[in-house]
């Protein structure tokens, strides 16, 4: 994944699961989770994701005149709301949540913080 793709993807998934007193998606490791998936079981999603990120950045330029990564969180949410009814965005939401709430071994739920957040009693040692 090239650095500029990673930057915009990070910004998008951090609006899908933003930071509050618990980690955002990227803070939990979801970029690593997505990277693994895109190299294997979700390989077919790569061109769809590229197109989605391109469309998000285009919408950002069309509405506010700047790159998505340079917008405020509120502005980013506004841009995403114009695209959030698409199958591509729904799929990214699904994958991000898979990583965030699955077991830490999958890479997207560092230190099982999301389990602590929701109150899941975890696994036997």
């Amino acid at each position, binding site marked *: 994944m090239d650095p500029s793709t990673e930057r915009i993807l990070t910004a998008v998934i951090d609006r899908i699961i933003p930071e509050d007193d*618990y980690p955002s998606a990227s803070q939990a490791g979801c970029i690593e989770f997505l990277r693994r998936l895109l190299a294997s079981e979700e390989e077919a999603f790569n061109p769809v994701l590229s197109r989605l990120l391109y469309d998000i950045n285009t919408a950002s330029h069309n509405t506010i005149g700047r790159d998505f990564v340079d917008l405020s969180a509120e502005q980013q949410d506004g841009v995403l709301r114009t695209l959030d009814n698409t199958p591509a965005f729904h799929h990214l939401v699904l994958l991000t949540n898979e990583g965030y*709430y699955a077991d830490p071994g999958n890479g997207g739920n560092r230190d099982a913080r999301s389990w602590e957040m929701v109150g899941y009693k975890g696994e036997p040692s």
Partner: protein
Amino acid sequence: MSQGLRSEYDAIVVGGGAGGGVVACQLAEAGQHVLLLERGRALSYRQVPRDHLRNHRQSIYGDNTTTDYEGHPRVFVDPAGREHVLKPHMGGYHLNAMTLGGGTRVYGGQAWRFHPLDFRMASTYGVPKGSSLADWPITYDDLAPYYEQAEWELGVCGDHATSLPAWKRNKPYPMPPFPDSPSSIALRKAAKQLGWATQPVPLLMNTIPYNGRAACIQCANCVGQACPSDGKVGSQNTVIPRALKTGNCDLLLETQAERIDTDDRGRVIGVTFVRYEDGQIHRTSVRAKRVILSAAAVETARLLLTSSSRHHPHGLGNHSDHVGRHLQGHVYTGAHAITREVMYDGKGPGVNICTLKFNHGNPGIIGGGLLANEFLKTPFKFWTEAPGDVPRWGIKAKQYMRNNFTRAEHVQGPIQDIPSPDARVTLDPKVRDRFGNPVARLSGTTHPESINASLYMHERAREWLAGIDPVKIWAFRPQLALTGGQHQAGTARMSADPKAGVTDAWGRVHGHDNLYVADGSLHVTNGGFNPVLTIFALAYRVADGINKAAR
């Protein structure tokens, strides 16, 4: 590889799951020489990953027991007629689990006897047009002693005092049920106000040390996973070790039965099986006096169909065109709620209260089913079950998860499938497995009456949940689809008349004196209950018949 194998066995058992384990054990303990074939591996607890995205409850990218994803495709024909070539973990493949123990290695272990009326569905309700609803050639009373044997030999926990009077139980359960939870307390109170009787859910699990294994440690993630304390009962930790201990049972793992061999008179004489080792296929034929098929409904049917010959042009047991037909499982229906108080206490398995009020006698409905609360959920499973009006992204979506995971309530149950002869397993004309054999092709749907029953049961689930005064109730609409899956049954159904089924009342394939079925394929109908205890009981009964005939 053929070192140490006998030149002829008293019995070859195909499949080391629920039925196969029991038959191998009963025959070996009676002194018979048994060869047990299992196509999966024997997996220790550490070898079954607790991956929340790859397990037998949510098989998103795989499951936690399949090791060969490429070599065993199936073809699924969807309701629109489109063909899909599928890998084992995919929806539509209808996998149980490919490992020693079969589904019992990772199931939830609900341990239900069928209701007496489940054996007489046609006499009780009539036969809806287009369905293959039929009576069994045995009654509940015929199977009751074997249900009792299964409960005591394998180990089932439950509450005798509140169990269904229609079961006419002679002995209590060997172990007490799991304790109450906030969920069962709330649901019992609501049921009482509705005038519904409830009871604890019987489970194939140790609530106390039993059979030399420790009790369940009540972890938070049971169904679809291997058990961390070995408290969950499977054939791999009960009857199969017993069979091996006799010295009379040889077990071959990673070995797939390919064909039931017959002689030039059409009589069954043994099994040809295959292994894949170092990139090479090794094929062996072994003789046996009897062959018992316990490969579960899809693969048992496939093996019968594959074993065609001059005498059996349409496959073994298939002179009346019933092999592979009437594939059943269960439509699941229910409702979800968000509660005002925290329900979640992290103490599994979680499914500990049910009502059997709606299994039968529902106005205008054929059959019905049980309703129970659910096994404890994983966070991602809870995420997938959110109602349609919850945001799926953004801070509110995150807060929904945070505020509601411990307030999730879910009541659901397996609705008795009304079978269709067009829900079936055939051999695919084109696709082959790793060994060059035609794979199973699955097509058809359950009968539409199953959807009527499930809509009725959904309303009952809503009613029950309304009684706990929740914040919100929602449900997902059941679709007309092919059932089977982990509850697969019906494809070698028992019948008195050889033209109406595949086996007789003792599991012996019509037209043969030494070929048997001992798995869910035998089920004429599949009850409004999880089927595994019935599979275990029928296996005890089939084995009993074989042992008596062998004396």
